[in-house]
């Protein structure tokens, strides 16, 4: 099967049909959710401070929904209108922008406390036209330079992505470095064909933990158990520290839905016993 980024430009590939298919596929939801939680772990935000995050290539909001549940406020950018439309239908709470990240950002310096990007960066490695502004190095340079300035000092940006070669990794990290970022590549489960995941961890400024985090390791079977365990440990940690205040409870969501209904929004899902529950991505 050919990789999506070889098939067509993103805004074409993720048309109406694919955007729905992509978002509704439960296996895909689970994979994207797992990687989002791992990216949040690697982002290593101070536990008790509310944060304003950027979701780069936010798509239909699979990660955004997790950011909502975890109590983060966020903005998301994506170049595929159909994906953003699905995000609107799913009522994610972040502000959405139709934007080609290869054209760079206009966000003021220090706008965001951190950024995540799940399964997006490989799209920047393909030239879309022969115009010089669209060569991958140009696009990556604009992207990383304007992202670096949009992030607060200190902070991090975490990208899970699918490189096809070490040369690509080399290209990306060297351009990110020139843009002012520290950090590097973290590989989870490097020896598993299925579970192997590549994360680019970029640092702005001096970190409390300057060392790159360790990649997860282990046999494939144990692995998943370990990810889950780590996540549970994380959750328990935050819980005992007095959890993030703005995590939405059931009452809040019901109230919000009621509000949408009053406004005559017709696509509000009916309340179900699942309303306000964490989506099951673990256990």
């Amino acid at each position, binding site marked *: 099967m050919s990789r999506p980024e070889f098939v067509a430009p993103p805004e074409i590939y993720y048309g109406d049909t694919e955007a729905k298919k992509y978002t509704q596929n439960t296996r895909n939801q689970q994979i994207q959710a797992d990687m989002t939680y791992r990216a949040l772990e690697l982002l290593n935000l101070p536990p008790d401070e*509310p944060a*304003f995050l950027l979701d780069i290539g936010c798509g239909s909001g699979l990660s955004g929904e997790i950011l909502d549940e975890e109590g983060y406020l966020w903005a998301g950018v994506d170049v595929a209108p159909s994906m953003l439309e699905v995000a609107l239908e799913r009522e994610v*709470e972040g502000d959405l*922008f139709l934007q080609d990240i290869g*054209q760079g950002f206009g*966000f*003021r310096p220090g*706008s965001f406390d951190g950024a995540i990007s799940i399964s997006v960066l490989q799209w920047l490695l393909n030239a879309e036209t022969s115009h010089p502004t669209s060569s991958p190095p140009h696009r990556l340079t604009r992207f990383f330079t304007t992202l670096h300035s949009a992030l607060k000092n200190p902070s991090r940006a975490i990208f899970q992505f699918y490189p096809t070669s070490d040369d690509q990794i080399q290209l990306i990290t060297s351009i990110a470095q020139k843009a002012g970022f520290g950090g590097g590549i973290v590989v989870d489960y490097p020896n598993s064909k299925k579970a192997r995941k590549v994360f680019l961890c970029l640092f702005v400024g001096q970190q409390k933990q300057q060392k790159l985090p360790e990649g997860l390791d282990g046999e494939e079977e144990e692995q998943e158990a370990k990810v889950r365990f780590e996540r549970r440990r994380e959750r328990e940690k935050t819980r005992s520290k007095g959890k993030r*205040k703005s995590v939405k409870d059931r009452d809040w969501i019901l109230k919000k839905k009621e*509000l949408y209904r009053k406004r005559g929004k017709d696509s509000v899902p009916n309340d179900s016993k699942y309303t306000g529950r964490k989506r099951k991505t673990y256990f």
Partner: protein
Amino acid sequence: MVRLITHNLLACHVKGCNANNFPLEFRNVELEIREAEFNPDFVKGFLPKIEWKALVDTARQLGDTSLPEEQPEMLDDDFLKNLHHVLLEIHVEEGAMVCPNCKHEYPIASGIPNMLLAEHEIA
């Protein structure tokens, strides 16, 4: 779903447009007010990021006069609630944002601003 929280962070990114390119001016807007959960810690934490004058002017343009000209020293609950409302509850659903410098227009449809640039506008 552009809210003033992100509008206040956004400057024009057209090639060569580096001065006087903030804040983008709203045109022909349709607004929607949607309640959002009040988190005083978030609002307080966000204060240092705000360009105050741009926020107050833009809020007034959109019909909200609840914020004082000068950022107050005392952050009482009333103030934080007003700020919360301005940052997070006013949604611009339709219209456009126009750069005060180069006049580039970023159209807004269904709450989503179109930030795409033409080839010659890319830095």
